[in-house]
């Protein structure tokens, strides 16, 4: 067992019970304020001119006619902001507007600020750009094999290198070839994960306001106010102290708003030129072009096992189709291999990952960044291996469980690990033992597992400062004010700090106010990505709140002449533990503290533990203070006549450490499973080819043709929370927002195999793709229910296992 005594608390009153989101009522009644809801006197509207070519040199830009149009206040081009930026400090390869080269259809080349949107649009048509088209790269293999005879998507950093390669990672742990050769069974497979995009309901939006005397304010629908703050200052050559970024409520992001975008720089620069506030709101089409969604992955896996079903060796080769810019691609390339090493024991592992540039919208992080694709391939590999050795796939996974308080083969530190409980939970709830290989032809169940990080252990730009922080004030009214640096994108982090403040200080939840997302007034938190917020912000909030609690306990204890530790703060009261009838309303307790210590405020922060990673180049990438674990069982009904896969139900068991608010955790579990389901069954960010209109043109940048599941398509989802009480997380909590996406896709693939004996190794499982596979299987005579395993899964314990 992990040393998690600190978090094995039974005294929690609010934490762990269902609570409202503090902004829930405002959202559900339409009063919540998003960036586009903001309006300022004299505000101008901006539009961005985008490239109609996938790869071209900009020969000249003539903006004179646009500038002369009545109502136009400013026109800018790449030359106005000639500084490269990029979310990863080692790969800055973007300009706010293209300087001399465009790299995909939709790349921004100029921007206009005008009195209204229609005037701005009319002005765009008056901008004359002369392009010299260049041969484009669309196929990642062609990009990887390019010889420089035509210009690379980006100049090579060193003479003689292929400029199309963003990053290559080759890492090997243990004796891969030797153990593979010694394996009783080896399964080899090629897998393809089609690209998908985030499709948040709210399009990107930003407003810039230059005050005329040197200060810039930008409101943005961003996930990363802090990184935006830094990049705005750098690109616009301002002191960071003169830049203020505000984050209104965000209408969904899922990784698609986790780096700076052209519109944020453009509204800032246009406001600096015009002296008036400038707003840009993306169209839905622009959201598809800005993308940064899931990379298409071409994957080859070789996986070995012993005859009794123990993994011996894993060998992976992965090609990532990155699109036009690096984005988070350096990290994605590492994640494509680094995050696979749990929850199963892998004696030897090698991965060889290459990310290339192509002339398509840039790929980046989407919920489950970099690890959803390999997990899809690997969990199918496990299913195939289990079948080969005659083991039930749940039993196979149990046998390879890595355990807790251990290190993975790539030296990542694992602490709490509730994966076995997750397997038990889905096995029990789904009725696995009576369904697997036993349902009628066409019906089937599949299982898959996964792990994910609870935040990156190391920040994007190297520094020793806290990853997350809050400032807290209490006063004589009983009110608690929290200044939170965190990024609220709908996941509920404002609510989480409020729950923690109320828990620790004993006030009603309604007395807690959260001010968040204002870089002038809130402490630094690095942003909402990598499932880091609840974990890190939660610890920071506990830190700040417990400092204040100690002051209040001290003041009350002095008044009562008792020991400070005997004073409890709970449910609106300060209470003496030995005799709970001795009590004081919490506001009076705060008065005593304010009288004794003066105005009451504290700061709290969190930084990650060291030595949780591997001692090799890249060994810090993938390291996290804690890992979540998930298992899914999916049940499907396949129509072999049409190829339609109906997912009837997904059972989602997730080890989130501790559910601070089980309703929010279930929401994340269901949302994740839904998103994975959509990627499995229908979503694909694809492009026209030379035979279909124009190569590199987005297939259809709209929510009509980029199909995401409607409520009618969505399967029943059952969330099964597993609590392993992590030693490091706040009250033992770990992430819940990304991990539960991973197993959806392979669980559905494995269920299709159970239903009709057809392996789906390429995504998505659209009816036409499934129909083609069924047709091939029919010809091959393999369209039959697979045989059951010799070794069935042992029945799980009857009662759910709770760690405390």
């Amino acid at each position, binding site marked *: 067992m992990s040393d998690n005594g600190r978090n094995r608390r039974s005294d929690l009153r609010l934490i762990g019970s269902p609570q409202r989101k503090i902004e829930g009522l405002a959202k559900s009644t339409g009063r919540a304020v998003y960036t586009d809801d903001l309006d300022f006197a004299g505000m101008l509207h901006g539009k961005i001119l985008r490239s109609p070519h996938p790869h071209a040199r900009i020969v000249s830009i003539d903006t004179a006619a646009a500038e002369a149009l009545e109502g136009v206040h400013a026109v800018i081009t790449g030359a106005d902001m000639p500084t490269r930026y990029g979310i990863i400090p080692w790969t800055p390869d973007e300009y706010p507007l293209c300087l001399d080269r465009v790299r995909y259809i939709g790349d921004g080349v100029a921007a206009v600020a005008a009195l209204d949107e229609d005037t701005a649009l009319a002005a765009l048509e008056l901008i004359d750009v002369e392009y010299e088209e260049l041969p484009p790269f669309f196929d990642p293999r062609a990009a990887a094999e390019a010889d420089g005879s035509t210009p690379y998507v980006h100049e090579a950093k060193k003479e003689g290198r292929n400029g199309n390669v963003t990053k290559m990672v080759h890492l090997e742990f243990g004796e891969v070839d030797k153990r593979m050769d010694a394996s009783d069974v080896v399964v080899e497979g090629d897998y393809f994960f089609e690209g998908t995009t985030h499709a948040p309901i709210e399009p990107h939006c930003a407003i810039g306001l230059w005050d005329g005397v040197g200060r810039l304010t930008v409101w943005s629908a961003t996930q990363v106010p802090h990184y935006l703050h830094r990049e705005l200052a750098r690109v616009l050559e301002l002191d960071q102290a003169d830049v203020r970024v505000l984050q209104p409520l965000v209408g969904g992001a899922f990784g698609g708003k986790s780096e700076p975008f052209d519109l944020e720089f453009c509204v800032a620069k246009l406001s600096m030129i015009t002296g008036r506030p400038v707003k840009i709101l993306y169209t*839905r*089409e622009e959201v598809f072009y800005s993308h940064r969604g899931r990379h298409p992955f071409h994957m080859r896996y070789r996986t070995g096992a012993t005859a009794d079903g123990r993994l011996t060796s894993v060998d992976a080769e992965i090609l990532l189709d990155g699109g036009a810019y690096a984005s988070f691609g350096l990290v994605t390339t590492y994640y494509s291999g680094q995050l696979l090493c749990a929850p199963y024991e892998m004696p030897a592992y090698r991965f060889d990952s290459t990310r290339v540039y192509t002339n398509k919208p840039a790929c980046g992080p989407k919920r489950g960044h970099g690890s959803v694709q390999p997990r899809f391939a690997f969990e199918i590999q496990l299913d195939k291996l289990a079948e080969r050795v005659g083991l039930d796939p749940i039993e196979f996974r149990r046998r390879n469980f890595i355990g807790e308080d251990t290190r993975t083969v790539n030296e990542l530190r694992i602490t709490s690990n509730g994966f076995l409980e997750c397997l038990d939970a889905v096995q029990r709830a789904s009725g696995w033992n009576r369904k697997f290989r036993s349902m009628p032809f066409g019906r089937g169940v599949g299982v898959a597992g996964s792990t994910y990080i609870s935040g990156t252990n190391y920040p994007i730009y190297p520094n020793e400062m806290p990853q997350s922080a809050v400032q807290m004030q209490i006063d004589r009214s009983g009110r608690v004010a929290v200044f939170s640096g965190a990024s609220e994108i709908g996941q509920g982090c404002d609510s989480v700090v409020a729950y923690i403040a109320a828990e620790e200080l004993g006030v009603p939840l309604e007395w807690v106010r959260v001010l968040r997302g204002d870089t002038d007034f809130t402490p630094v938190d690095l942003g909402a990505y990598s499932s880091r917020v609840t974990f890190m912000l939660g610890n920071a909030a506990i830190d700040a709140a417990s400092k204040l609690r100690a002051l209040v306990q001290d003041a009350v204890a002095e008044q009562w002449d008792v020991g400070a530790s005997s004073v409890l703060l709970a449910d609106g009261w300060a209470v003496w533990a030995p005799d709970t009838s001795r009590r004081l309303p919490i506001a009076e307790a705060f008065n005593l503290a304010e009288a004794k210590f003066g105005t009451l405020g504290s700061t709290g922060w969190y930084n990650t533990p060291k030595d949780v990673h591997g001692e090799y180049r890249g060994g810090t990438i993938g390291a996290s203070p804690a890992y979540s674990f998930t298992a899914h069982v999916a049940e499907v009904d396949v129509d072999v006549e049409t190829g339609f896969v109906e997912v009837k139900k997904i059972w989602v068991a997730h080890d989130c450490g501790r559910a601070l608010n089980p309703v929010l955790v279930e929401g994340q579990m269901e949302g994740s499973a839904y998103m994975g389901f959509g990627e499995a069954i229908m979503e694909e960010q694809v492009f026209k080819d030379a035979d279909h209109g124009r190569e590199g043109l*987005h297939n259809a940048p709209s929510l*009509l*043709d980029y*199909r995401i599941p409607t409520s*009618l398509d969505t399967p029943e989802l059952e969330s099964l929370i597993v609590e392993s009480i992590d030693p490091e997380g706040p009250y033992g909590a770990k992430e819940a927002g990304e991990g539960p996406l991973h197993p959806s896709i392979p669980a559905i693939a494995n269920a299709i195999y159970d239903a009709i004996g057809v392996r789906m190794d390429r995504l998505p499982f659209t009816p*036409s793709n499934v129909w*083609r596979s069924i047709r091939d299987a029919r010809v091959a005579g393999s369209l039959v229910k697979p045989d059951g395993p010799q070794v069935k899964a042992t029945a799980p314990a009857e009662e759910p296992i709770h760690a405390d």
Partner: protein
Amino acid sequence: MLRLPPFRYHRPTSLAGALSLKGEFGSDAMYVAGGTDLIPNMKHRLFEPDHLIALKGVPELVGIGERDGHLRIGASVTLADVAASEAVRSRFPALAEAAAHVAGPQLRNSGTLGGNVCLDTRCTYYNQTAFWRGALGYCLKKDGDVCHVTKVGKKCVAAHSADTPPVLMTLDAVVVLAGPGGERRVSLADFFVADGILNTQREPDEVLTEILIPLDSATRRQGYAKLRQRKSIDFPLLTVAVAVGLEGDRVQSLDGVVTGLGARPRRLTGWQEIAEGRALDDGLVEELAERAHKQCHPLENIIVDPDWRRAMVAVYVKRALAKARAA
């Protein structure tokens, strides 16, 4: 958000008023009913009329009722109301079902039956933004001179994509068109023409005022099957409507219409000859499906795998016939 081009909105209160406005503004004006097709198309700059003449306030276009041996459905009756109408459901269940399969609930509350009958054809190279079409180099149907689907020829093959016309055709429905010169009736079977640019016989100044379905058609057993990837919102990848007249257990008449292929719905040929006088059993259904499959060739005007869509012709014909048998 995509911007609408500027236009002036007129709301006449009579059919004569609507026709008079159209006479006044000519080709600068377009009629609009529910707007669920036209308004997105305007945002895509496929149409940029200076004037929109709203038909929602025109009393001649409302209501569902019987008249002269027909069920008369006013053109501006919403699809939601068609789907819910007892008069429709009891006689023409396939029409109610087709109406209920158009788009999603909000769009059915606004979109009208007349609008669905007059729905503009759709194509992956056409129903896109102005920027996208510019990057493509435009197409035959709008602003260009190339068809990206066929790559040769000067004929637009944009797909007829409406859900209700196939059913209406199998029921021998007639539409009434009112123009400056008076009214005319056109059988729905003759209404569509094989030209993706303008695929109906309605003249630009005519208003489709009502849809008439012979009450006799209610004796036919009807079936309707729509292929789409999602259970809501999506346009049809394929729609099959069938109507069977039985005498005893013998087929007396049989009609089948498929759409989602080319510019107009395709009435399946040779069905009557195969089926007349026979029992509608599994063997006959297989033969009919085979016959339909031979005639239907989906194109890449819709972005979904044409081979699969072709294979689905037979499957969905069978499913539509199965519904007719069970009716």
